């Protein structure tokens, strides 16, 4: 194992520990050893993916994921000046409007998803639950390029189609990637209503959104 590999593993382990002080110490050590900002961030981003997998498997929980994300955020503050100096101008981010659809008051699955998307670097506008269709439209008009809709009930899942129909009617469809999820939702349903992304889990949704953002 090279010295670089050892340092990379230390960084990765620190992120997976989900402890902010350990993450910051690993970053300081990596910098002291001469590692540049970009590879540090790349290694940590990869480790955040593993944090997401551990969360999905029930090995760690939401506060742990957020602690890891907080460590990432503080790292970005520390490395910000160096990253800015090396910036190519090609870095991408996006606004995600997300909510549980009108008539459905189930909040937790959607909240976990919005939290994971935030950890994935998206700018989250979480509208909560029982969200009127027009609020999604307003957010898209104001610049959201991803629209995430959640439903837990078979009786509310068709509201997703109604919302997509309004997006189409108002000529906004090309501006936005529509994501749908929730217990009754399947890929078949997502295809049927014309959604772009179906996520079976919060991590899967985040990965698919990142793939579209970076495509």
């Amino acid at each position, binding site marked *: 194992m090279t010295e670089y590999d050892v340092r990379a593993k230390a960084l990765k382990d620190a992120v997976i520990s989900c402890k902010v002080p350990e993450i910051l110490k690993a970053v300081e050590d990596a910098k002291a050893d001469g590692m540049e900002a970009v590879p540090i961030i790349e290694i940590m981003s990869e480790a955040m993916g593993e944090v997401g997998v551990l969360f999905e498997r029930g090995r760690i*929980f*939401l*506060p742990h994921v957020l602690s890891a994300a907080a460590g990432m955020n503080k790292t970005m503050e520390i490395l910000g000046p160096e990253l800015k100096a090396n910036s190519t101008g090609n870095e991408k981010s996006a606004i995600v409007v997300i909510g549980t659809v009108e008539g459905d008051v189930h*909040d937790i699955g959607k909240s976990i998803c919005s*939290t994971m998307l935030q950890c994935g670097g998206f700018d989250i506008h979480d509208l909560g639950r029982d969200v009127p269709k027009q609020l999604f439209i307003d957010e898209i008009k104001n610049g959201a390029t991803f629209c995430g809709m959640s439903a837990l009930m078979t009786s509310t899942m068709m509201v997703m189609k109604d919302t997509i129909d309004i997006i189409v009617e108002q000529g906004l469809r090309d501006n936005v990637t529509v994501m749908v999820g929730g217990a009754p939702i399947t890929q078949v349903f997502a295809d049927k209503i014309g959604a772009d992304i179906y996520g079976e889990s919060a991590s899967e949704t985040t990965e698919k959104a990142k793939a579209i953002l970076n495509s």
Partner: protein
Amino acid sequence: MGDGRRVRMTKQQIIDDIHAGMADGADAARVPELSEEEMERICEIVCDKNKIVSVEPGKEVVLSKDAGTTKFNMANNGCGVGIPSTGLLDGQLIYERCFAFDSMEFAWMDYSIKPTKAVIDFMLINYEQMSQMTTMPLVMGAMPNMGLYFAPDGPHANPTDLMREFKIEESMAASEAAADQLTNDIGYICERIGEVGCEGFDFDTTASAGDAEFVATLRGIENYRKIDPEAYIECGMSAENVLGIHGSMEYDGKIVAGMYPHEQVKLVEKAGANIFGPVVNTNSSRSFAWNVARSAVIVKECEKVSNIPVHVNLGMGVGGIPMCELPPTDIVGRSGKILIEIANVDGI
């Protein structure tokens, strides 16, 4: 399929899905796998050509029921069938005299602890009247539903909102404060129903707001058991594992986040409940064979370690049943038979 779609599968595809679903469940819950013989039996039941599939005489299990009689008079989008009836008395009599239920629950239409507290006097009068006209045991029921204690419905800040602002300690504090309030409200309701001789309480859809709600409910059950040693207490879950929204909440010295049914039941037992209702979520993208095998392996271990009766949740979206408004009867019968024969459940 788990979303109610009809698909054609070969026997080999069904066998493959039974193996895959079972392996997924065993891995997720970290429980022993089913034997080849058990999986072959599941396949036989899934492939049974009869429309009505059931257990042999003598192997029937008892039924308990959540949400009381509200399923009659609520509209379809509230999971009801829209039959005009007085929610409490008419429904109880129908369940006793038409459906021959073993026990029944009475519940306020807004089926949660917080709103039930506000109407408890109304509920007690109804209980007194119902108990004069029925012979089956009647328990009161409600979901702990701790979500109602958080903004925008309650006094405490929403933990997931706080987490998105990286206010993790504040988020945990909000969960703990809401849990204390929920435990107190459970205590108030249980004390009041005891005054009129109510037989017990069904804590339904427990832990829907995560680990803090589970702990609050366990504490509530513990307190209820102290004030009524004879009470008949059922605790049913909302999902197969306890969501770690707080992450560190403990009961009996154990962190409850991430617990699966075989771990949950030990705490429910310790708190003093009489019946545990495990849940295994249906994956709407997978086949019935995959889902029911997954349910069987998870529930079997729960039943094995439990010292109290286990009544598995069997209905739309849980226990292998598809997530659609009208689950097909032949699917429901097969799920019940598999969970009785393979997972050895005491009730449904």
